[in-house]
């Protein structure tokens, strides 16, 4: 192991001393951070700037097999794709053709992972005339052509509808723009006035990264740079191996499902996972996973790699950045043509991130078998993104992208504590756009955005609660849903913790007296609503596991008249540990704060809280005797 290497052996293997390796490893992290912040603070696309929908990396040269020692603080959904996408791009283009000042682009999901909007930009870094490394950014472009503006859809059926596919090609050669590539892109995409500056900002970020790497090479030498790339990846592989060795050997299975595809609801899509752990190695086998979907909710093999990596980091290596060394002790078995290994032209890939959420649920369920108390409860299992379009009275168009639906939702409970209620999903990250900014840009009024009492999956550490969001749309509006996880509860409990509750989407007709007539949150309110997604009672429209499944993609978009109110209710997250072991003081605190009702405290936690939480929140007390009696005889479930 690295730790036991003496100075000579370390220098022999890594081309520098330990001190230099430590300094350069830090430097790689900084370089990536600077590349990304240059892009982020200049981005126009709301997806890029608000959802960090990009990644930056440094990769070694072909001789290092594109080893990746540093990855950015953006979203983890890109992580597992980055090494392979740079390798596939450069190997196909031809590393021997590269020259200083080149930028190579590609966006084909089957070559580079994720989806067509995520364009990969690769810039080679030369030092002393030799190829030293690559600096890379993969960033979501607001549009890539295809049948649906912006691309976000579950209903596109083929590669041809999905968007423009770019095989690897130069965007710049020796610092000069390659006009035919730029023209190819701008002849095929919408919103060119946003893509153009965004692509320039990406290239400016790469140029900065190149400059910083060259300065480092001048100071420390190419050998130390290349050695440190290997050193960082080796160290990560060692950490994973050591953590795997501590887990019990065995085989565990997990699964999860997407409700449907964008064609109809005749078929559910299952991700089946079996993990086998022996000593320092792990095999992840996805045999038994459903065939590829008929519309663009598929993912590719590189996305499987991402999610396996994320799950392993959660459990085994939570601190620090991703490197390609993470995967050295892991084998992934993946049949061709499944919903997570789709093939062109029919296995269209857009909502890959929804499959990533299904996969992480399946993996966390399987890993719960060997992780013991380190198990992590399920989150809400999807992103529940909402998009809306319309025109103002003066005819000018407006777009609301991923701002007003179920985007903000809960995390599951863990050994460390309760799950937060207001997060994005496990593999997403981003900025919640301010209500005031949304209302200044789009004709909408945010009516309420609050957690629902008693919704959180009970546990010794409970999950986060469902968030309920009501928005009133002031003009005629067309809504697009992406709800693929409303049929069953995604937020599973672990270690004796209980599951969360399912969610749904409804639309209410414009209330006659405006905001004063807005629907309440009780069950009686839903009779007047039209459900758009969820499993609901056919009479009352209230969520009911025994009710009717409402398929959300009957129409490509749902139109509403001025003043209509859209309601999103997320699935809540699962709890960790037996809720009857939760500290009664924590239960009382949840009652005081409105996360749990007095009835819920008794039913779900066996804690009898006395008082009036609304009028006298500090006057609540715990009836210890009654609590003891309830907890002595937990209800059968």
């Amino acid at each position: 192991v690295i730790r036991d290497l003496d100075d000579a052996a370390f220098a022999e293997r890594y081309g520098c001393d330990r001190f230099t390796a430590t300094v350069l490893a830090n430097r790689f992290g900084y370089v990536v951070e600077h590349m990304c912040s240059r892009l982020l603070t200049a981005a126009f696309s709301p997806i890029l700037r608000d959802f960090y929908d990009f990644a930056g990396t440094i990769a070694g040269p072909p001789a290092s097999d594109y080893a990746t020692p540093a990855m950015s603080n953006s979203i983890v959904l890109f992580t597992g794709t980055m090494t392979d996408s740079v390798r596939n791009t450069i190997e196909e283009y031809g590393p021997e053709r590269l020259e200083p000042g080149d930028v190579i682009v590609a966006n084909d999901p089957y070559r580079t992972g994720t989806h067509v909007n995520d364009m990969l930009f690769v810039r080679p870094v030369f030092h002393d005339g030799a190829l030293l490394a690559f600096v890379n950014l993969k960033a979501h472009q607001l549009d890539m052509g295809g049948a649906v503006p912006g691309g976000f859809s579950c209903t596109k059926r083929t590669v041809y509808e999905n968007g423009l596919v770019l095989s690897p090609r130069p965007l710049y050669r020796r610092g000069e723009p390659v006009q035919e590539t730029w023209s190819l892109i701008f002849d095929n995409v919408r919103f060119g006035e946003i893509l153009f500056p965004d692509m320039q900002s990406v290239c400016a970020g790469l140029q900065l990264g190149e400059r910083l790497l060259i300065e480092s090479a001048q100071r420390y030498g190419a050998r130390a740079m290349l050695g440190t790339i290997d050193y960082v990846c080796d160290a990560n592989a060692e950490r994973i191996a050591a953590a795997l060795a501590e887990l019990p050997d065995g085989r565990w299975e997990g699964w999860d499902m997407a409700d449907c595809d964008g064609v109809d609801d005749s078929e559910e899509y299952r991700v089946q996972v079996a993990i086998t752990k022996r000593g320092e190695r792990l095999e992840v086998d996805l045999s038994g996973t459903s065939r590829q979907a008929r519309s663009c909710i598929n993912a590719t093999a590189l996305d499987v790699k991402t999610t396996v990596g994320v799950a392993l980091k959660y459990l085994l290596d939570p601190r620090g950045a991703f490197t390609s060394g993470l995967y050295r002790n892991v084998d992934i078995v993946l049949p061709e043509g499944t919903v997570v290994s789709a093939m062109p032209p029919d296995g269209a890939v857009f909502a890959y991130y929804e499959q990533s959420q299904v996969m992480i649920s399946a993996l966390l369920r399987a890993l719960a078998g060997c992780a013991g108390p380190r198990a992590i409860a399920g989150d809400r299992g999807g992103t529940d993104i909402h998009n809306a379009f319309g025109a103002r009275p003066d005819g000018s168009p407006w777009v609301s992208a991923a701002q007003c639906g179920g985007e903000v939702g809960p995390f599951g409970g863990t050994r460390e504590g309760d799950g937060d209620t207001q997060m994005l999903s496990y593999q997403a990250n981003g900025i919640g756009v301010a209500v005031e900014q949304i209302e200044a840009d789009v004709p909408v009024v945010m009516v309420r955005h609050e957690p629902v009492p008693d919704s959180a999956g009970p546990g010794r550490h409970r999950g986060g609660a469902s968030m309920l969001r009501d928005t009133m749309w002031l003009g005629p509006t067309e809504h697009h849903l992406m709800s693929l996880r409303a049929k069953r509860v995604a937020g599973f409990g672990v270690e004796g913790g209980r599951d969360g509750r399912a969610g749904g989407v409804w639309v209410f007709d414009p209330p006659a007296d405006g905001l004063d007539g807005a629907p309440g949150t009780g069950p009686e309110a839903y009779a007047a609503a039209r459900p758009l997604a969820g499993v609901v009672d056919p009479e009352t429209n209230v969520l009911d596991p025994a009710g009717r499944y409402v398929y959300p993609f009957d129409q490509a978009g749902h139109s509403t008249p001025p003043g209509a109110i859209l309601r999103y209710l997320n699935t809540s997250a699962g709890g960790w540990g037996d809720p009857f072991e939760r500290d009664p003081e924590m239960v009382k605190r949840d009652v005081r704060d409105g996360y749990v009702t007095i009835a819920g405290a008794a039913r779900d936690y066996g804690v009898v809280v006395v008082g009036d939480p609304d009028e006298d929140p500090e006057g609540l007390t715990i009836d210890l005797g009654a609590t003891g009696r309830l907890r002595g005889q937990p209800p059968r479930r």
Partner: protein
Amino acid sequence: MIGVDVGGTFTDVVAVRDGQLTVTKVPSDAAQPAAAVIEGARRIGVEGSAVFNHASTMGLNAVITRRLPKVAFLTTEGHRDILDRGTLRRPLDGQTDPSWRRPFGDAARPLVPRYLRRGIVERTLADGSELRALDEAQARRQLAVLRRCAVEGVAICLLNAYVDATHERRLRELVHEELGADVAVSISSETSPLAKEYARASTTVVDVFMKLIFGRYSAQLDEELRALGFAGDLHFADCAATLLPWREALEKPFRIVFAGPAAGTISSTRLGAALGTGNLLCADVGGTSTDVSLVVDGAPFVNNTFEIEHDVVINALSTEVSSVGAGGGSIVSISPSGDIRVGPESAGADPGPACYGRGGEQPTLTDACLLMGILDPGGFAGGEMALDPELARRAFAALDTPLSFEQRVAFAYRIAVANIAEEVMNVAVRHGVDPRDFSLVAYGAAGPMLLPAALELLHVARVIVPPQPGLFSAMGLLSTDLVHYESRSAYVLLMPDAAADVEERYKEMEQALRARVDANGATIRRSLDGRLLGQSWETPFVEVGDGAITAETMPALVERFHDAYERRYGNRFPYVPVQGVTYRVELVVGADKLEYAEVAAAPDPEPAGTLELRYLDDEPLQASVYDRDALGLGATIRGPAIVREPLSTTVVMPGQTAAVGRFGEIVIEAQP
């Protein structure tokens, strides 16, 4: 004039009287924060002093530790959870670590627990129109609950109140009617009338905390200073180390939540001005961390927000200070792959480094410097404390690593220097400046023993060790101006037809400032934060320039925006329209400042002795030792050498030359 910098461990006091600088250090007392300040004032004498300038990290510490008064938060019904949500984002550490929780979220340690956050029935829209009237009966019912809970203060932030403040003002009246005239109240439309509800709400909440924390404290301080014979003005420093009369500071006390590190940047700026150099990288090496900041062309780099902890944002102008966990007390440990690591954990003041002999067993950077011979075992902290090299040796010997003892100590020192250098480099890159054009100012008690070694890693032009490096930050409080400011938000496309509207906003703010402040001799500075249409990040501090904004001058303003954008981000998009977001007026009143005393010429310094400097090279180096007080203008020292003064030690590395300048500053450069 007197400056007082209240830190967590020590309260530093500096005074200038008839051009003479006197200094003292008093232990801080968190339970009775005013006591240390008064003790310092007593020791140094306040009679006849014109100003007493006060900086404190007390506000920040109260927020971080959650030792806070009970405060309620009122907002539009349906939105009380904006304080649980923040800006939503997770930091890198939180992305793959399942134990990460939002530190101020309801599942962790909220600033205001959910039951004290109450929704009020009312609604104003983004254009300022009223969609729903304020329901006063409902508001009174909510206030009755807060009365029962005996809250000490109330923060009010209603949606879109930055456009129209009617409901907030009325609600404040109701609060006083229901909870009493003396309850502390802040409303967002006055505290910080800027768009985006979360930052405005958290600013308003912090403002109420600071009203309660500083309110009593300031009155007591003022009274006790008067009792000591002080007849001048008491000023508080803010997050940019500019000053405000204390009563005015208490009107918007969120501004003074964190004053301290910024004073060091101001001090560097002042010294730079005296030396005729305006491009400075400033590094303040303390016990647990190093604070790095930047001065370009004589101006510190200022931000329009300040983050108290992860995502707890306030809309305060603040000097940008970034921190790296490397300081004198940083703990030296071994990573799983066998690397030496320094920090971010720190031994703090108690137990402190192993060599303090107070029970610390882990080696620290201070222990490394002692073993290397840099620190004098008998003469630490002005001779008040003896250091035990044997304890330091044992701590390093106990590390579990195959590295030799020599390597452990040498790597600890070099890693710490490299970590600080990386952070300095990082600050330079982030702002697009070339360190070769910059001088590195090395202060904080531990700065001069670490930063000269960073010279070769950083390629800065030189390292400057100022006089009194341990008290250099506090001296910044005697080097700054009084700055009053107002700001407003409105999303306005900067087109010629909007000129009158924008001009009107500036005029209103200027009138408000002039009504408050005697503007005689003051300078007025207008700036705006804008964005290219479609972006959500603003480019801050675009200079608006003098003279009225008219349809004719608007294109020039837009050009200035594009210039500022290009300087910051390296691209220029002249075809994209520019949107103004925040408009700001600063009224700057010049104050008397510290003048550095010149030192006498003494070109031929005599070493006080020699010592062995270990672990810097394969063999120990013979280094000359100098007493700083004996050095005069023109003294030149060739490294390796050590310069001692009561509270600090300067290391001149082999291959470096140190020259003493006009004000006693030590300027270290690589030998040509």
